[in-house]
């Protein structure tokens, strides 16, 4: 039987929730490459970081499987993100809605990713479960995102919203395919 494997990449800045995103939706126990952080400033946010990738998988049916690759967020592993992005069908860029300081870094990451691949992407504003989270219109404005790039609310710890983000990405890919057929 033919198996169709679709490669989706989950990227974003440091500690934006990429590993959690993959963990929430994968139907296999995700393979993660977490390593303990040593620098105190970094440890203020979290204790472990992804050093190579997260890998998760979603079986759509017996013939189609989505493979999710979470990239590392740390700048020193940028090469890994760039490697993972090549050849993907589409990607999700996660942004932390509670850390405005990370917005310029995310904008840079968006530019860099668009240089590497023309694959369609959506931006997911994570941590929207926090009542102090920045609203989507502010995030869109700060990232300079045009309206044809979907920006969706996300709570990486909540499977339903993670599924919503992936659906938006798949619909975005389908719309592009339709446009060109």
């Amino acid at each position, binding site marked *: 039987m*033919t*198996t169709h494997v679709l490669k989706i990449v989950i990227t974003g800045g440091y500690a934006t929730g990429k590993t959690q995103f993959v963990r929430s939706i994968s139907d296999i126990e995700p393979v993660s490459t977490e390593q303990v952080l040593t620098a105190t400033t970094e440890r203020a946010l979290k204790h472990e970081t992804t050093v190579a990738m997260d890998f998760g998988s979603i079986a759509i049916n017996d013939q189609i499987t989505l493979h999710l690759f979470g990239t590392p967020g740390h700048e020193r592993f940028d090469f890994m993100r760039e490697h993972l992005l*090549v050849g*993907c069908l589409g990607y999700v860029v996660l942004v932390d809605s509670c850390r*405005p300081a990370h917005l310029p870094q995310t904008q840079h990451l968006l530019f860099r990713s*668009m240089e590497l691949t023309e694959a369609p992407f959506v931006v997911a504003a994570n941590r929207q479960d*926090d009542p102090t*989270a920045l609203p989507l219109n502010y995030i869109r404005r700060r990232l300079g995102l045009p309206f044809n*790039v979907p920006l969706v609310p996300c709570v990486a710890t909540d499977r339903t919203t993670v599924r919503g983000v992936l659906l938006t990405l798949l619909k975005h890919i389908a719309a592009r*395919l339709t446009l060109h057929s």
Partner: protein
Amino acid sequence: MALEGNLQNMALSDLIQVFHTDAKTGILFLKGTHERGVIYVADGRLIDAVVVRGKERTIVATRDEAVLQMLTWEQADFIFRYEPTVRKRPIRIVHSGQCLILEGMRRHADPVRTLSYYNITPETILHLAALPRNVRSGVRLSIDQWRILSWIASGQNVHTICQATGLDVPAVTRLVVELMAIGLVEIAPCLSAATEPAYRDCTMIASAAPVYAHDVPYINKNSRSFSNVCGTMRQVCSEIDLLDVITRCINQL
């Protein structure tokens, strides 16, 4: 759980705008070089504020004046915490956030510095911001602000506005920043939408064994073109109707 940063990453005027449009409730703590400030926010409205100095926490300013002073700070770490009990506090601030922002901008020697992350150049194209429905504004604009606003309505860049109004670039930039600070004006998106790739030719992986795009020896690292990647892919994979596969994913995820 809190919104955290420094005024250099997000100006107080932006914070006040966000509180207002998103009807936030909580307490904003600011830690400046010599002074500290607190602003209480209930359902988007600024209700009380104080600025203190030194270890003794000598009160320097309260209410509207405290907010105006904080609006002139360029550097301060901030943290905004959700706190529903703020709603029970008495309202001691008289003016709206927008009025305070405009007055704070007038007092600032160089308000452009407060929104430096927006990087306004003569080529920057501006447009009117979409105002949320709940916005009620009591602000009074100056003649020059109105003149600038009328040009922005037609989507001009800073350079053209200078030519049309006879004002120089620093003057127009300052007026634009004032209008941005109260949420009336925005910079047009700088990130150009991904140029439409030739998805028509995209055929994704279809093979007996799972193959990841990056495992296949076709990858031409110099090529960002999705259709090129997919074209080479066809040499190693049998063809499938990608749109059909994606549609099935959407229906069954």
